[in-house]
C-alpha cells in the first residue's frame, strides 16, 4: 500500500499533470550506446608506435541497450538507476553531447543544451559577459540576450555586481546567476543531471520554486537523479533503468519501490559474491502492519514491527544479527542487534536452518523515508557473514511538524515564577 497521505500532499503541492493527449516532446527509439574502454590506454604516440595494435585491446561496455520511450509536452520526467546503469549516458545522448550508436531521438521545441548549472561560465569574465555568452550558448541571438540582460541580473538580484568578475563571486551568487541564466533561455525542454542534490538548503529551495514555475509554464523537464524523494515529489512519471535497459516506466511511487527492491536484490548479491562466502542469505524483510499484512509506511508515534527472515547456508558456532536505521540523507539514526539463539538458548546454527528476526520499535522518527541496513557477524573468529544495504525501507508520516531527525517523547513545562514573599 502506498503512503496515501504523503502522495496526496505532493500532488497538491505540484501542478496538474499534462493532458493525456499532450503532444510528444521527446521520442527515443531503440537507443544504443557502447563505450570502448581500453585495457591499456594508449595516450602517447610513442606507445602507439611501439605497440601499433595495442589500441585494439579494449573491452566494450554496453551503456545503453535498446532504450525506447516517449515524453509528452509539459511532463516532468525522472530517470533513475544505480551508478553505472546508463542514466547519465542517456541524458548526454538527449543533449547531443554523445552520439548514439543506433536508434533515433526526435524532439519538438528548443532544448536547453545544459545538463548542469553554471557550465560554460568563465570566471575571468564579468557577470554581464557571462550572461551574454551563456545566452548565446543556449541558442538565443546576441540581440535577444542583450535585451534580457537586465531582467536576468535583476532576477538573480545581482544588478549591482554586474561588472564584477565571476571569480570574485560567492558560491551563492554564482548559483543565483546560473539559475537565472537557465531560466532566461526560455527553452521548451530542459535536461538536468542531479542539480537538486547539490547545494545548500536555500539553493534547493530556490531550485524547487524554479522547477515548480517551469512545470506550471508547461516546460518539458527530464531529470536524472538518485533521490527517490525528488522523483516522488516532482515527477509526473519516471523511468527506472538498469544495465542499459528499461526496467519500468510509470508512476514515480512504483518506480521508487522497484528501485529500492533492486538495490536490495543487488545488495545481497554483491555482498555475498564479493566476499566469496555464502554463509547467510537474506530471504525477506518487511514492515508488518496491525493486521499482520505488509506496510510501506508507518505513522509517527505508532509502534514499528520489522520482520526479517534469514537462511543459514553454512554451519556456524554463533551469529550476531544487527541493523542500522538510516534516514533519507544517509545519516545513521540508531542501531540495534542481538545474537541468534536456538530455543534451548544455544548459539550454534546448521546449514539450512532459518532464522526469523522480530523487531518491535518505538517510533519517534521525524516524517520522511528511512532505510534499514542489515548485517550478520560471526561471533567466533569474527568477520562479516552478510551485509545488505537497504534491506528494507519505510516512510514515516504524521506527527507534529518539527525540525530534527527524531521527535523524542518529552515533558516540558514553562511557568511564570511566582514571587515568594
Amino acid at each position, binding site marked *: 500500500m502506498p503512503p496515501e497521505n504523503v502522495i496526496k500532499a505532493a500532488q497538491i503541492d505540484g501542478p496538474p499533470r499534462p493532458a493525456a493527449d499532450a503532444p510528444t516532446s521527446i521520442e527515443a527509439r531503440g537507443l544504443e550506446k557502447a563505450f570502448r574502454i581500453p585495457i591499456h590506454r594508449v595516450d602517447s604516440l610513442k606507445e602507439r608506435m611501439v605497440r601499433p595494435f595495442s589500441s585494439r585491446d579494449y573491452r566494450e561496455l554496453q551503456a545503453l541497450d535498446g532504450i525506447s520511450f516517449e515524453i509528452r509536452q509539459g511532463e516532468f520526467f525522472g530517470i533513475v538507476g544505480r551508478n553505472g546503469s546508463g542514466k547519465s549516458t542517456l541524458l548526454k545522448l538527449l543533449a547531443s553531447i554523445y552520439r*548514439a550508436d543506433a536508434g533515433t531521438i526526435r524532439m519538438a521545441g528548443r532544448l536547453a543544451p545544459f545538463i548542469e548549472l553554471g557550465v560554460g561560465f568563465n570566471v575571468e569574465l564579468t557577470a554581464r559577459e557571462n550572461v551574454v555568452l551563456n545566452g548565446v*550558448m543556449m541558442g538565443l541571438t546576441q540581440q535577444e540576450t542583450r535585451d534580457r540582460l537586465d531582467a536576468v541580473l535583476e532576477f538573480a538580484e545581482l544588478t549591482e555586481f554586474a561588472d564584477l568578475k565571476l571569480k570574485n563571486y560567492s558560491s551563492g551568487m554564482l548559483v543565483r546567476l546560473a539559475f537565472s541564466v537557465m531560466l532566461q533561455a526560455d527553452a*521548451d525542454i530542459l535536461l538536468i543531471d542531479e542539480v537538486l542534490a547539490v547545494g545548500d538548503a536555500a539553493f534547493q529551495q530556490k531550485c524547487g520554486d524554479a522547477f515548480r514555475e517551469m512545470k506550471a509554464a508547461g516546460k518539458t523537464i527530464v531529470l536524472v537523479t538518485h533521490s527517490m524523494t525528488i522523483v516522488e515529489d516532482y515527477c509526473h512519471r519516471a523511468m527506472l533503468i538498469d544495465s542499459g535497459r528499461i526496467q519500468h516506466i510509470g508512476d514515480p511511487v512504483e518506480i521508487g519501490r522497484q528501485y529500492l527492491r533492486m538495490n536490495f536484490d543487488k545488495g545481497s548479491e554483491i555482498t555475498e559474491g564479493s566476499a566469496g562466502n555464502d554463509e547467510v542469505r537474506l530471504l525477506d524483510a518487511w514492515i508488518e502492519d496491525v493486521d499482520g499484512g505488509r506496510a510501506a509506511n508507518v505513522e509517527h508515534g505508532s509502534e514499528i514491527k520489522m520482520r526479517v527472515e534469514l537462511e543459514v547456508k553454512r554451519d556456524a558456532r554463533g551469529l550476531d544479527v544487527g541493523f542500522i536505521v538510516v534516514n533519507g540523507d544517509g545519516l545513521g539514526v540508531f542501531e540495534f542487534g542481538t545474537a541468534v539463539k536456538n530455543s534451548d538458548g544455544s548459539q550454534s546454527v546448521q546449514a539450512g536452518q532459518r532464522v526469523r528476526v522480530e523487531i518491535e520499535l518505538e517510533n519517534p522518527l521525524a516524517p520522511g523515508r528511512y532505510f534499514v541496513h542489515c548485517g550478520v557477524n560471526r561471533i567466533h573468529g569474527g568477520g562479516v557473514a552478510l551485509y545488505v544495504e537497504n534491506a528494507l525501507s519505510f516512510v514515516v508520516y504524521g506527527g507534529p511538524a518539527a525540525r530534527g531527525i527524531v521527535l523524542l517523547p518529552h515533558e516540558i513545562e514553562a511557568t511564570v515564577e511566582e514571587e515568594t514573599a
Partner: protein
Amino acid sequence: MRVQPEVGPLREVRGPSALGGGWRRFADLLWLMSATEFKRVYFGTVLGYLWSLVRPLMLFGVLLFVFTKIFRIGSGVPNYPIMLLFGIVLFSFFQEATQNAVTSVVAQEGIVRKTQFPRLVIPLAVVLTAFFNLCLNLIVVFGFVLAWGIDPTWTWLLFPLALAALFILTTAVSMILSVLYVRFRDVLIIWTVVAQVLFYGTPILYPIEIVPEQYWKILFLNPLAPLFEQIRVWVIDPSAPTAASVVGGAAGLLPAISIFIGICVLAVWIFNRDAPRIAEDL
C-alpha cells in the same frame, strides 16, 4: 486548462558535430568567444595590448642585432629589417594560434562534456583571437614600413590575399592539432619542436637568395615559405625573387600548394570524424 506553448513538430536530433546547432549560433559563439578572450587578455594585464606588441618587437630587436651586426647576413639585403619584422609578426600569429589551439579543446572540457556545443568553435576562436592581435600588430608594422621609406605600391592590395591563405593554413593546422591532442598528449611537445623547425625553414631570418640553390625546392615544400616570399615581393621589395621564380616557374609551386590543400582536407576530415566522439575521449 493550461495553455501549452507552441513548439512545432518533432525533429531528429543527430548528436554532436563540428558545427552543431546551426550557422547563426556557430557564428555568434565564435565571435563572442574570441572577442571576450581578446578583451580578457588585453584588458586583464597592466600594459594590455602593448604586451602583444612588445614580444615580437623584442625578438625583432635581438635578431636584427645578431644578423646585421654579428653574422651580417642582412647587411647587403635591401630593407632587411622590415623583412625581418614583417616575417616575425606574421609567424608569431601562426605560432601563437597553433600553440594555443593544441590544448584548447581539452581545456574547455566542461563545455565539451556538459553542453551541446559546436566543437569547431573552440580551436577557431583561438585562431581568431590571435588574428585580432595580428591585425593590430600589422597597423604598427605598416607604420614602420612607411617610416622606413618604402612607397606603397598597387601590389599591397594583394597582401590580404596572402593573409587569407595564412589564416586558412593556421586554422587547418589548429583543427588537426586540437583534435589529435585529445587522444595523444605528446602532440603539444612535438608541435613546439615542429613550429621551431618551421620558423627556421621559412625565409624570415634570411632572404632566400643566400640559401644554396639546391635546397630551394626542399625549403619550398613548406607552404609557409612561398607564402612569406611572395608577401616580401608584394609588400617590401618588388625586386626580390618571386615565389614562382625560386622554384623555376609556377609549376614548381605545385608541391607546396598540394601540401597546403592536403592539410586543409585532412583538417576537415579528421575534425568531422572525431568531433562526435570528443566528449567520450576526454
